[in-house]
């Protein structure tokens, strides 16, 4: 896509994500040809949608499309349980799209949990996959990069909320954004987001399962940093359900857990480094 097409694409996705979520967003994506875009320019399709979806706190089954593409399956993909990246055999998770397409011998249960709006389901049963599992690492990598974009989007939204609050909220006769303690928390969040954004960009520039896992781990880690500082800046109002912050906090926690949370991925990375006594391949200039 050239610059102009990309801007148009982004604008229509933004419109779709801000007015729809779930099945309705899926329909809107079909209508505006997101799946075709995925075939033409994978990076633009994934990075634009998932970042906007994260910013809008919306959800779709686009993750199924992305992972399904790697696995060569059409329809919902069974995700590993929280914290794991292994191909699920008996128990896993799925997007809301599972509710409409129940495969035989599989039980699908809605998940409430901390973020009911995400619409996750729990999937149990004989989870035979038609595709060979040799494609699984690529599917995980593709999913991790998408989720990393979504985490960056959610982080940007949290920072925007906190920044606007800090500029508008007056205490001691001035906006609280004038106080260095507040400014530095916002700056810390900004830096965390830029670091994650860099790592996600690098996962596209140099595609590998390692770079995808690093991007996901960094995005999860940075989303937690952003959530902590922004919640503190938003203070009382951010703790109420009248303010949108809580939705992003909930979403960020679950997105971090899907396809390997930052803590688990970091620990695995460290173990590999300690046993091999080597660094993972460094990004080339």
């Amino acid at each position, binding site marked *: 896509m050239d610059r102009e097409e990309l801007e148009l694409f982004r604008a229509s996705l933004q419109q779709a994500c801000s007015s729809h979520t779930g099945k309705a967003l899926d329909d809107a994506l079909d209508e505006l040809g997101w799946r075709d875009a995925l075939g033409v320019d994978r990076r633009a399709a994934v990075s634009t949608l998932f970042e906007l979806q994260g910013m809008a706190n919306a959800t779709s089954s686009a993750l199924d499309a992305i992972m399904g593409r790697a696995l060569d399956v059409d329809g919902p993909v069974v995700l590993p349980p929280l914290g794991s990246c292994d191909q699920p055999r008996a128990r896993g998770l799925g997007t809301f799209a599972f509710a409409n397409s129940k495969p035989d011998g599989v039980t699908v249960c809605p998940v409430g949990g901390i973020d009911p709006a995400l619409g996750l389901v729990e999937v149990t049963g004989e989870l035979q996959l038609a595709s060979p599992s040799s494609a699984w690492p690529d599917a995980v990598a593709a999913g991790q990069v998408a989720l990393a974009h979504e985490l960056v989007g959610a982080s940007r939204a949290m920072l925007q909320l906190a*920044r606007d609050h*800090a*500029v508008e909220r007056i205490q001691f006769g*001035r*906006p609280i*954004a*004038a*106080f*260095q303690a507040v*400014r*530095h928390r*916002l*700056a*810390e969040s*900004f*830096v965390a987001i*830029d*670091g*994650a954004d*860099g*790592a996600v*960009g*690098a996962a596209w520039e140099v595609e590998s399962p390692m770079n995808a896992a*690093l991007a996901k*781990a*960094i995005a999860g*880690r*940075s989303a937690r940093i952003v959530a902590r500082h922004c919640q503190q800046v938003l203070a009382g109002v951010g703790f109420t359900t009248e303010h949108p912050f809580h939705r992003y906090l909930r979403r960020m926690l679950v997105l971090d857990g899907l396809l390997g949370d930052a*803590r688990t*991925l*970091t*620990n*695995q*990375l*460290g*173990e590999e*480094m*300690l*046993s091999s*006594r*080597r*660094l*993972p391949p*460094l*990004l080339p*200039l």
Partner: protein
Amino acid sequence: MELEEFRSGLDAWLDEQAAALAPSGAVGSLDDEMAQLAKVKWATFDAGWMRWGWPERVGGLGGSPILRAYLGEALTARDLVNAGGYSMTEVLAPTVIDYARPELAAEMVPLLLRGEEMWCQGFSEPGTGSNLAALSCRAVRVDDGWRVTGQKVWTSYAQYAARCMLLTRTGPPESAHRGITAMFVDMASPGITVRPLGTMHGGAEFCEVFFDDVAVPFERMLGEEGQGWSVAMDLLPFERSTSLWHRGALLNRRLEQFLSAAEAESVGASEVGDVFLQLHALRARSRSTQHRMAAGERLGPETSVDKILLATAEQSLFDLVAAGLADDVLLGDDSASERWRAEYLYSRAATIYGGSAEIQRNIVARRLLDLGADA
């Protein structure tokens, strides 16, 4: 010359020259470090590598500045140079090229590139740390030039430097950033005294520099009278671009060396993984900065993000080193231990030098988050 061609050619040349370029004996003292730096710069200039990425009018061979980023990375990753001293070129040469008279730049820059000279940067003063615009080192206009009187501090490698990029106060004391003029001063000029400072990490890299009625000809001005603040502001992003890429390469190298030196059971996997995550995020970020710079984009306050990522990652890495190699860092007296200890202690300054952690966050808050003035 494209990066791929440069990379493979340089790597092959470095393999071939490994013995000739290696430090002769252990690099312990600062004198050794400077001699090694001069040797490597001379050899790489002579073979042409050091000239790529610099304009032809200052002795370069042209090409993208990304080639300079790779050269510094390759030399650092092979432990041939110390990134700190090596990268001074990346900070000072671009500013001289942009602001010195063309003849002066053409005469001077090659001396720095080929390691014949070291240069230093006279910015900070005893009364002027974070608040650079308040500097008071005074330059008074006389018939044939300026007369400079005052003091600088934290001037890296001043005792080795042949020239100094100096910020002086030429306007009235209250003129703040408007009354500053930048000059390119010969360190051999009568009236300059250099006094190295002892620092906790051991190497006396930082100096105090005293100026007592030092004569500086008009043609040594960088930019116009009163333009010194722009010179300084244009220089600072260079501190946070190519030189940060080099420093990041050094940190990756040290993490690798740590992994082979540490007992696996003495460190936690999550701590090791977390340090690599930070270095990876820094590298990804710095990589895109290198490419923006190569594309001719003007670097600005967004490079403060690179500096914050670097300083945080550097301290995390050496916290890990101090825990995993505690015997070496705390008790060891062999040269490997001394290096780990010196670098651990030096890392404590990563959030202080080149614009403190607080100043960097102020820049992010003001310029990137648009939070307005602070209280």
